[in-house]
């Protein structure tokens, strides 16, 4: 230590130590109250590690008493907002349904994957090997989803996902993996077709330069060119782009009939929209993907986003009993309109509950996933849905637009529903899978 500072009284150390202790206690104290689902009948979720050494055998059926689900989501890290929404949606379902299904109690153990595949794997391992969960749910980011699905499936445990990563139910299909959601390309096929049917002949696409972006744009390009349109230019922006000015001005220069934005949602959507509006592009027709005009954008930019057209499976202003109920309950608790991440997790819980009903509370590997796959919903937060034979949703895609609600908040309402859209669009499974997964080189069907 510096001579000059050594002479100072050491009481500051006690002060700092005291402050640190208080903060540490608060941080630890926060754990007990925030990890358990609100008003849950089940014991607190974050319990001490099991003292008995866990075996590496697949999780056995949790018959009769309790079924444990390992819920993995990014509650810290750069997509923390998504993780929080996911948890809320999931918890809400169980709270409304008393934490039971099929005659068993459903208990959730939560893990934070921090948006990192390696952490996600460690947590998945803990859930399967130490806690001995009967199944896992989540995570959201594509690479974490692939990693977890691969590991959990390899352990003989079912895993449920809402992540859109295409190959989870395509080229990397696993009978123990079920996606309660749509692939990243799925909802964009009808978007492309619709755009062409509107009379737009040339399109420019803007998507992030990685798997999700390639798949999103791939869906639009496939639908658009398949209907007869041409892609004038494809603009790819790197992950973590801060300033979309360059990309917006490029689109401006290309002067197409329509622009498709395949946003990863969240900050990307906000940043893109800020640039789009400030460069005066408001007059150019714009079509967004599932995640562009989601609530994560609208909570921040609602007014500026008024009127945006997008294609999604989740429309929070839809005129359906299921959606209304979900939105009402969610909003009364969190004072926010739920995003698609919350809705997806809610539906995931509902599907698992349905499967438990079908199997009478038995969870044994593939049979349980089959039971889930066999479910059909006449109405759900995503509308009427069922599952195809690679465990992906077949359901409606809504053309929606943003408008103001009576109370001034902004949300999406349905203009048209294209029913029964599958991940393979109109191409049929085998023909579709014969092609490689969408990449940035895909410019025409």
């Amino acid at each position, binding site marked *: *230590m*510096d001579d000059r500072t050594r002479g100072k009284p050491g009481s500051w*150390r006690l002060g*700092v*130590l005291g402050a*640190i202790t208080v*903060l*540490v206690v*608060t*941080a*630890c104290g*926060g*754990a007990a109250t*925030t*990890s358990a689902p609100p008003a849950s009948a089940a014991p607190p979720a*974050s319990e001490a*590690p*099991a003292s*008995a*050494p*866990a*075996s*590496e055998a697949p999780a056995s059926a949790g018959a009769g008493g309790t079924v444990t689900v390992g819920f993995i989501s990014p*509650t*810290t890290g750069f997509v923390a907002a998504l993780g929080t929404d996911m948890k809320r949606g999931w918890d809400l379902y169980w709270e409304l349904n008393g934490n039971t299904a099929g005659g068993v109690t459903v208990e959730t153990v939560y*893990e*934070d994957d*921090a948006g*990192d*595949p*390696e*952490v996600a*794997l*460690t*947590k998945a*391992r*803990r859930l399967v*090997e*130490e806690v001995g969960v009967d199944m896992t749910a989540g995570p959201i980011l*594509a*690479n974490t989803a*692939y*990693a977890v*699905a*691969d*590991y959990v499936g390899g352990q003989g445990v079912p895993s449920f996902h809402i992540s859109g*990563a295409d*190959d989870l139910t395509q080229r*990397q299909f696993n009978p123990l993996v079920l996606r309660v959601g749509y692939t990243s390309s799925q909802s964009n096929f009808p978007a492309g077709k619709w755009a062409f049917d509107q009379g737009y002949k040339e399109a420019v696409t803007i998507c992030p*330069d*990685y*798997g*999700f972006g390639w798949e999103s744009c791939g869906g639009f390009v496939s639908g658009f060119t398949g209907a007869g349109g041409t892609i004038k230019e494809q603009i790819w922006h*790197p*992950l973590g782009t801060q300033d979309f000015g360059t990309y917006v001005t490029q689109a401006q220069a290309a002067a197409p009939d329509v622009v498709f934005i395949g946003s990863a949602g969240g900050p990307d959507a906000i940043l893109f929209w800020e640039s789009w509006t400030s460069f005066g592009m408001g007059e150019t027709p714009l079509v967004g993907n599932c995640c562009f005009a989601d609530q994560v954008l609208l909570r921040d930019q609602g007014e500026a986003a008024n009127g945006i057209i997008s294609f999604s499976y989740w429309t929070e202003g839809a005129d359906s009993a299921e959606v209304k109920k979900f939105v009402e309950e969610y909003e009364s608790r969190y004072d926010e309109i739920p995003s698609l991440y919350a809705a997806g997790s809610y539906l995931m819980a509902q599907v698992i509950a349905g499967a438990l009903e079908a199997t009478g509370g038995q969870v044994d590997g593939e049979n349980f996933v089959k039971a889930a796959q066999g479910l059909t919903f006449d109405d759900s937060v995503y509308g009427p849905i069922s599952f195809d034979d690679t465990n992906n949703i077949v359901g409606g895609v809504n053309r929606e637009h943003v408008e103001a609600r009576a109370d001034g908040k902004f949300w999406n309402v349905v203009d048209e529903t294209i029913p029964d859209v599958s991940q393979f669009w109109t191409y049929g499974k085998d023909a579709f899978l014969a092609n490689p997964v969408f*990449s940035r080189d895909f410019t025409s069907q």
Partner: protein
Amino acid sequence: MTADRTRTVAIVAALAVAVAAPFVLPTYLVTLLSLVFIAALLASSIDLLAGQGGLLSIGHAGIAASAAYAIAWGTTESLALPIQLGLALVVTLVVSAVYALTTMRTRGIVFLMITLALGIVVYGLALKLSTITGGQNGLTGIDRPEVLASSSAFYLLTVAAFVLAVVFRAVLARSSFGLVLRGIRESESRMSSLGYSVTRAKFLAVMLSGLLAGLAGVLIVWQAEFISPNVASFNRSAMAVVMVILGGTGTLLGPLIGAGVVVGTEHWLSSYVERWPTLLGLVFIAVVLFAPGGVVGAFSRWRHGAVRDRQHAEPGTRAALPSLLEDQGLAGGVDGRPSEPQ
């Protein structure tokens, strides 16, 4: 001497505990410990440069990632194991050479920034060359060799690898090359006027450190049986550096302690504490305030009961260009004691 014997006993006991762990602990914890040892290995590679040479690299995850991707690609191409390992070695050497060649004429903050840039370039390549690397989605199914399939067997390998690194660094520290490196750390001009080739020494040091990092990379991909560009991320490199400082630079076990704290919090404590990043940050702050030489330094201080020598240069003699680490901060050679013949 009794001090030496106590030390030997302590080392043997520690090794025994480490080796016995998989027979006592559940598999999940064994896997966690593997992560700790692998992180400690990467941190050791950084400390080789920092502790001996006074060169701090904040891009070493890039070297590890390169080796990891080599193995991953080799596995997807179904190459035989020896060929995969050979490929990983070649890639490690090439990438380390790039690091070495670009940095051997620099030191301090400039060295830091170049390694930073290189790490980011590797990350960018991992994202871009998606046909080989799987891009952001990564590659699944990178199965370990059969013999390492069980978590216990793999864990023992990680312990062995870390012990190898420790021995390697100890030997290096006691060797004449280690002396040369420490001489360079103290004063490059003096060393070159004595006839040593400073650039050649630095080149070699980076290459040696790169070998350790490459080994860590192979273990990383085998541990997860999955790889994504995150392995090369700036966060990974930065955290590895933090582990080194936390444990105490220039110490043999410092990297292990640092790795234990960081990996333990990120991967284990985070299951129980929601605000774990705050906790981790507070730990860092506490260590700096109460154990400025790192944990190992504080431990030695406590053990020897003596007041540590000043660990800073006299203010006012700073060079105009801050040469990070040049005349301070490092606790000398092995074990926190000033470097002297043992």
